[in-house]
């Protein structure tokens, strides 16, 4: 047993050392074991010596680990074909092959995982800005098709699905049947798209139509999607629909409505004026017209400002922007703060 361990230790030595001396070291081990009266003790000592040697060779003798340079040999030329210098004895080390294999398998697994879960990410499609002048009576499906090519193509694909899942059927049909992953994903995408676009024609009275879904739409989402246990896709859809159902139970925020906050024309007139932000120069013109404020930023059309509070406003068609007027103690307006996505631009009144 000790001899086997000694052989193993010798095999673990660097290749060059092993080739030169391992045979002799094993021979010495055999001779010492056979000639010594206390063979067990002698073998144990030799085993310890082998371990020390192993550590010494790998830790302290890097200069002897390199293979001697192989002289390039010229292949014999035949029939006028030029010969090439080749390193005939070269071949990759075994450990390099093992490492390469492990690395390749890991990369392959990562690629498969990425493909498997790619659908789980939200697709940020470049939806064009929806104008409010869309006809309220327009068919959601036709408006969907007119707004974006991608949305239209997705919808047409879904409509032409051989299983016959038309969008209208999706809204009313019970999901208690065994769902298919592919169909479920299409349903999910279509419902998301409709959440974006169908809200446009039905919310003319409200600003920021894209982020305030209509009650009818929320009602559509408030269904429970039943799926067999273990279906991860269906579980996620169910959780999402439950969240939306909770959201639907919350009444629409009154702050967004123009009827909730009514400002006097005198106050609006105070806000009217020219505001200029520091470089890059942004010129903002605010006018009071017809009992409401209108804002015009450089290169943008005139938009109506809907009051959120006495000093805060929101522009129609710009849901991400918030405008706040700041006044001096004497009541004169000092500046206009434009907030968008966590960034603020301060425009000083001229």
């Amino acid at each position, binding site marked *: 047993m000790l001899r086997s361990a000694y052989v193993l230790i010798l095999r673990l030595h660097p290749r060059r050392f092993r080739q030169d*001396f391992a045979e002799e070291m094993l*021979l*010495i081990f055999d001779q010492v074991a056979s000639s010594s009266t206390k063979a067990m003790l002698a073998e144990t*000592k030799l085993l310890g*010596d082998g371990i020390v040697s192993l550590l010494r060779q790998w830790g302290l003798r890097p200069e*002897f680990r390199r293979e001697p340079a192989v002289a390039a040999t010229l292949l014999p030329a035949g029939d006028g074909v030029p010969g090439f210098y080749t390193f005939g004895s070269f071949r990759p080390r075994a450990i390099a092959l093992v490492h390469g294999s492990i690395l390749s398998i890991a990369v392959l697994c990562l690629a498969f995982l990425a493909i498997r879960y790619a659908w789980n990410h939200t697709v940020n499609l470049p939806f064009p800005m929806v104008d409010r002048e869309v006809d309220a009576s327009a068919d959601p499906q036709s408006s969907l098709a007119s707004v974006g090519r991608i949305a239209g193509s997705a919808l047409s694909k879904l409509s032409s699905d051989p299983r016959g899942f038309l969008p209208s059927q999706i809204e009313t049909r019970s999901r208690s049947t065994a769902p298919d992953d592919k169909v479920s994903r299409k349903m999910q995408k279509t419902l998301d798209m409709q959440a974006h676009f169908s809200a446009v024609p039905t919310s003319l009275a409200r600003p920021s139509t894209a982020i305030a879904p209509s009650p009818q739409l929320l009602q559509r989402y408030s269904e429970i999607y039943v799926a067999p246990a273990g279906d991860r896709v269906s579980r996620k859809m169910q959780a999402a629909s439950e969240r939306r159902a909770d959201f639907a139970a919350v009444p629409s925020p009154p702050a967004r409505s123009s009827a909730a906050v009514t400002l006097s024309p005198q106050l609006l007139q105070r806000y009217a004026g020219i505001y200029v932000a520091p470089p890059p120069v942004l010129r903002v013109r605010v006018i009071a017209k017809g009992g409401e404020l209108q804002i015009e930023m450089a290169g943008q059309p005139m938009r109506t400002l809907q009051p959120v509070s006495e000093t805060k406003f929101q522009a129609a068609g710009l849901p991400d922007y918030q405008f706040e007027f700041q006044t001096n103690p004497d009541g004169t307006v000092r500046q206009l703060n434009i907030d968008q996505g966590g960034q603020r631009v301060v425009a000083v009144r001229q």
Partner: protein
Amino acid sequence: MLCPAALRILVANSLDIRYIGFRLMKEKVAEFIPLSPATLHILLSLAGEDRHGYGIMLEVARQSEGQYKLGPGTLYDNLQKLLDRQLVQPVGRRAGDDDPRRRYYRLSPLGHAVLSAEVGRLEDVVREAKVRLQPAKPRRA
């Protein structure tokens, strides 16, 4: 026949070459001094005759009267260095009754010079040590 002038030049050149070789050898030898105990014992064991690894181990134990024992790992680690520095050269395998796995090693001329230089250095050390360790003679009053 060479003329005396040519002969003189030839002898002078030969002496120069020998002198240069001697200088180079001396500089090279100085690189290895002092030797480690293991290296010294291995070179010393090979000074008399060619030996294989186990023979070197036994000879080292004999020379040191059992006080210094080399294990195979230490022996072949030092042999590897000595072969690399050309202080020792392999002789090959011997035919006959010997185990064919045995390889013999021989002291090279450079190894011999290094061993001689190291022994000379040790002699100086021993001489100096004897002088220092002598009991101090009492001074006359």
